[in-house]
């Protein structure tokens, strides 16, 4: 409670956000501890291929950390929930596969192409940001479905048609794994950087009350567009890496709605709007998913559903969010 009292006067803190401005009074040490934790995770991740035979589990673990963090940039920080998030993943996978298979591009060129495709798609879909709430979610989902249909309709030598593309080019899986680790740590680092700078506070204001935020001079449109571009581009790179890693893509899998919903669920479980939440949620759920999947294959979806519903009822702000709400003193250390 004491930290609420000693609020330093600042141009950034308007009265409406002062009560919940502890982000500003975040302990400097906690950011360092977090960065060291991330460095530690990266170090462990890099040494995995040396000790473990398969990297598949770890590859997907880091993919979900990246996707949940990227989704959180949009859904958690601006309150816009893109159902159609899978469109970015899909376009990235397709861009990389088409470049690699039909144009014989090396790994780096395929990835650059996928990044560009993701950014381009984000610009194309930017007009949907005028909408709010469920309107935005449903239109974004529709656009993902439209995009998938367009790819199916394209000639087979352009995008593989309905049967997809099998990538026969050589892409070293270990290198792809390292790249995925880099992308996911990059995504978390971006979220951290946004959160500890005044942008984090502006975004929180937008999420709480858009109109009020605009009145006190927050450039909501610009910030939202920036988040949209970032989150879409990261998802596209994830899609590209996954496509090259699994070396076979098809429209149903690349644009699978489960990619959107899983990213949303993992982020929400950990705590939307927090930096650590999506990481915690993604790690917990990927492990849970793996355990349930190997032990109870039939009950897998049922248990996943049960976890999701129970979390929403009992921890509506997710694990990290609920912790911060119940014990405000932790706000100096967790964010």
């Amino acid at each position: 409670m004491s930290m609420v009292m000693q609020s330093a006067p600042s141009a950034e803190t308007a009265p409406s956000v002062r009560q919940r401005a502890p982000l500003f009074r975040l302990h400097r040490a906690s950011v360092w501890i977090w960065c060291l934790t991330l460095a530690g995770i990266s170090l462990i991740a890099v040494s995995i291929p040396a000790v473990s035979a398969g990297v598949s589990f770890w590859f997907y673990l880091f993919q979900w950390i990246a996707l949940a963090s990227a989704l959180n940039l949009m859904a958690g920080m601006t309150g816009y929930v893109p159902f159609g998030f899978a469109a970015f993943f899909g376009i990235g996978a397709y861009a990389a596969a088409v470049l690699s298979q039909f144009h014989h591009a090396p790994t780096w060129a395929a990835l650059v192409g996928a990044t560009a495709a993701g950014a381009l798609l984000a610009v194309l879909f930017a007009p949907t940001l005028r909408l709010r709430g469920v309107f935005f979610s449903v239109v974004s989902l529709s656009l993902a479905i439209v995009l998938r249909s367009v790819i199916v309709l394209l000639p087979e030598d352009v995008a593989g048609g309905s049967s997809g593309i099998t990538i026969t080019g050589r892409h070293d899986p270990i290198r792809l794994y390292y790249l995925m680790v880099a992308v996911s740590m990059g995504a978390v680092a971006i979220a951290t950087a946004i959160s500890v700078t005044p942008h984090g506070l502006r975004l929180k204001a937008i999420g709480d009350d858009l109109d009020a935020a605009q009145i006190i001079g927050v450039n909501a449109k610009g910030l939202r567009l920036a988040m949209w571009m970032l989150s879409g581009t990261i998802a596209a790179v994830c899609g590209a890496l996954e496509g090259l890693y699994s070396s076979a893509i098809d429209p149903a899998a690349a644009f699978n709605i489960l990619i959107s919903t899983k990213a949303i669920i993992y982020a929400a479980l950990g705590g939307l709007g927090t930096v650590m939440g999506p990481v915690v949620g993604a790690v917990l759920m990927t492990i849970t998913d793996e355990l349930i999947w190997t032990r109870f294959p039939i009950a897998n979806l049922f248990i996943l559903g049960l976890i999701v519903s129970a979390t929403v009822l009992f921890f509506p702000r997710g694990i990290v969010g609920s912790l911060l709400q119940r014990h405000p003193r932790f706000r100096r250390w967790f964010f």
Partner: protein
Amino acid sequence: MTSLMTGAIVNAIALGILYGLLGLSLTIVYGAMRIANLAHGEMVLAGSYVAYVVTTQLGYSPLAAIPVAFILLFLLAFALFAVAGRRLQAARDPEMASFLFFYGVSLMVASGLLFLFDADARSVIFQFQPLSYRVLGLVIPKARVVAVGVAMVLVPALFLFLYRTTSGKALRAAVMNRDALRIVGVDVERLSLVAFSVSAGIAGVTGVLLALVFPAFTPFSGLDYTITGFVVIVLGGLGSPLGALLGGMIFAFSEQLTTLWIGQSAGVLAGFLILVLVVAIRPAGLIGQAEWKS
């Protein structure tokens, strides 16, 4: 070509009414309670499976499945909402919370159906007598006529309920302003509980009717129904019963006519493209009110 054209139009009308019914039950819940019921499609699907059990396994007429589906889903939804409703509506962001909660529910229902009925596609096997009617050179299956007939009774009945009874008026008032409704002394909690249960019951009936029109369904068809339902109500305007009906018609017509003129895969595309266009021009939907959103 003209007979193909008339066939497509007849199909579109039949599907349009069913899509409208799908949207109608969804829009009541979303409009009045801000609850995004992502498990709506699974409720519809549960209705289809009730029809499957009643007809294919027990050998009764699909008409007998209609009350069974309604009562079963009404009771299940009643129990679900009694447990979760209050917590969801008290959430900081009820829309988001309910979206996630019902996504969990949809996974549970889908896996429950998978456990009970396996992953194979099921269909309602029932021979109506006569099997089909011949009107103006068109062959129309009787199952389709029955489905449309029931929907034709159900839709006006729903409108009568929404526009002529006190509960219905209270429900529409909740779309406009929940707080004001509390002030005039309506028990909003009970209203929500009943509305949610009735909506689920109608979803179940819609499932029976869709099972008569669409040949086959699997435990994973639910999401398609949910998406169609949301597209239909966003197209028409959230919270507007008339909009849901209109949205259903437009979606069905665009789907059927494009399938006829261009092809199957373009048919799916057309409906969604029309949605994107409509929302770009009129963000509140065709006949939606923008006011209550703020």
